[in-house]
């Protein structure tokens, strides 16, 4: 496939690897440290086909075309992470991944440099540059951007894994006071113009798949994006990590930590996409959103975590002052989690919603849904975890009627994941 715009990313990752390999010896620092994460997954799921099978199912795995439940045993992920200390203050990080859903044999998840000199006052400065996840997810804090709480992240962070990635230059200042920490982060970025496509055309989903920088993800053949449809130029796939309009976007966040007991934060993202740019078979989407979070250490060892995201995405030309696609999206979750010795149990409630503001009769992107997730993460070895998860999702998406299904669908999924790190 022809991907001229991807070259800077390749160049960047190669440069990172080279820096890492050469600059290291001089300082006597350890050379490159490698870490591997393998995830073997047993899943049993009812209901519609997954969106990965060109359908509108909400989960990573789904039933068959007739809606019959399916059981599977697969390698869900094989991630390779490399860290290298170029100097005492500068670290290179590369995360590459294989999984069966990915359309490349191996792809890059992140590749960036992290500069963090020792603080000389109560304000510490640091910077990251490269392909990276903005710090939106409060769940994906484990190795290889996994969640230690559940197998499947919330709808919000599932989407972050699917469509949000930035080739960014990010600066951060952290003020440390007695028992308090206040951080301000700001970044300019590119290569995320198609972000928003999945939320509008597919809607929200719940899955632990993270899209590689060079990979495409599929879209269901709903009538609006079929030949003769309202958005017929939109192919049946999205390549989220692309620069199309040459306009940089930005994000910024403010985070507050009080004695590690209360954490609050607000994050704003605007890819400043030009909704009328169409290049390499992809639209630039003008996507803007807020993400807020709160984490509280509650009594009895329980931690309450919550995120709320609200935003809008627009694409296409103006007709009568209306964009071809103009959709508001909102999602939230509340999770209660508790450690049980070395193990952990988590219960989460998800809500998600898309409000289509234009041309609903030709292209209905409305959606509303909820989900319950219960997971038990057992530490079974020094670097091994066995996680069992129950997930039930209910959603109403009128676009399903365009592919001869009821708008209202629900799915129940049981998964067991064996995560081993090396």
């Amino acid at each position, binding site marked *: 496939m022809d991907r001229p715009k991807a070259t800077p990313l390749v160049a960047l990752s190669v440069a990172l690897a080279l820096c890492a390999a050469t600059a290291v010896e001089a300082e006597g620092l*350890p050379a490159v440290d490698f870490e591997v994460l393998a995830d073997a997954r047993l899943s049993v799921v009812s209901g519609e086909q997954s969106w990965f099978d060109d359908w509108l199912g909400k989960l990573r795995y789904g039933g068959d075309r007739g809606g019959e439940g399916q059981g599977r045993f697969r390698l869900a992920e094989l991630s390779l992470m490399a860290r290298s200390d170029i100097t005492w203050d500068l670290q290179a990080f590369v995360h590459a991944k294989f999984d069966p859903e990915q359309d490349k044999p191996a792809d890059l998840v992140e590749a960036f440099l992290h500069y963090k000199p*020792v603080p000389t006052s109560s304000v510490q400065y640091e910077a990251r540059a490269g392909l990276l996840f903005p710090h939106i997810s409060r769940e994906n804090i484990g190795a290889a951007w996994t969640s*230690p709480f559940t197998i499947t992240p919330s709808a919000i962070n599932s989407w972050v894994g699917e469509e949000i990635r930035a080739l960014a230059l990010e600066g951060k200042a952290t003020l440390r006071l007695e028992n308090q920490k206040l951080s301000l982060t700001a970044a300019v970025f590119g290569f995320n113009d198609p972000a928003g496509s999945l939320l509008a055309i597919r809607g929200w989903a719940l899955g632990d798949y993270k899209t590689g920088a060079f990979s495409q993800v599929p879209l269901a053949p709903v009538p609006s994006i079929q030949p003769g449809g309202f958005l017929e130029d939109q192919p049946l796939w999205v390549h989220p990590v692309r620069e199309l309009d040459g306009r940089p976007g930005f994000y910024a966040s403010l985070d507050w930590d009080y004695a590690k007991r209360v954490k609050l934060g607000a994050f704003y993202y605007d890819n400043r996409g030009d909704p009328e740019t169409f290049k390499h078979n992809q639209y630039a989407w003008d996507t803007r959103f807020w993400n807020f979070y709160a984490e509280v250490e509650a009594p009895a060892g329980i931690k309450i975590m919550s995120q709320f995201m609200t935003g809008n995405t627009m694409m296409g030309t103006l007709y009568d002052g209306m964009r071809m696609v103009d959709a508001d999206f909102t999602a939230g979750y509340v999770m209660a989690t508790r450690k049980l010795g070395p193990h952990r149990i988590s219960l989460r409630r998800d809500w998600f919603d898309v409000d289509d503001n234009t041309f609903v009769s030709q292209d209905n992107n409305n959606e509303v849904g909820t989900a319950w997730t219960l997971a038990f993460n057992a530490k079974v070895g020094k670097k091994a975890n066995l996680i069992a998860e129950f997930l039930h999702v209910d959603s109403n998406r009128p676009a399903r009627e365009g592919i001869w299904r009821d708008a209202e669908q629900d799915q129940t999924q049981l998964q067991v994941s064996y995560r081993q790190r090396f």
Partner: protein
Amino acid sequence: MKFRMLALVFGLMGPQVAAADLAVEIRDSGGQPVPNAVVSFAPKFTLTQPVPASASAEMRQEGTMFSPFVLPVQVGTTVSFPNFDEFRHQVYSFSKPKRFELRLYGQDESKTIHFENSGVVALGCNIHDNMLAYIYVSEHPIVAKTGEDGKVLVQSLEPGEYDIHIWHPDLASGADPILKSVSVSADGRTVSGQINLRSIRSIQQPPAEDDYN
């Protein structure tokens, strides 16, 4: 150093000076024992025998933690920072009495820092956010630290009157508490002090098991 050794020898040999043991007990306003409280003794008279300085002090890096959490030393002490972990630590302080950065590559590496100014030196590690410790550099000739029971036994004190200064990482703001004019007689005694601590304590947490970035 030689002088100190000599002094130590004299101190041990000098039977003419009576020495006393003093037990100090520190509790918080709720009556709970306070561990990791530093007690330093300012004599209100001229010591006839110089007090031997502790030969060395150590702040270890072990299991992604500093140990001890609070280290009391006298002005002029050289503290070594041995690394018992297989990975590196980047220890720093930007506290007024001593600003420094120490790069400890790997296991068994040790570096030293000389503390010539009195005050509180908060330590951090630039690589491991959870690591936290304090070095309390005292201008007084005698320093000690309470154990888990909030008590410490200070031995071989020269009888006389002392001001006992108390410091703790979680002291509520205000002047450091002092037990004024405690008289120490040859038969020894126990003193207790009460201090006000902040409700939120600064603790050094163990490292998080999962750390992505």
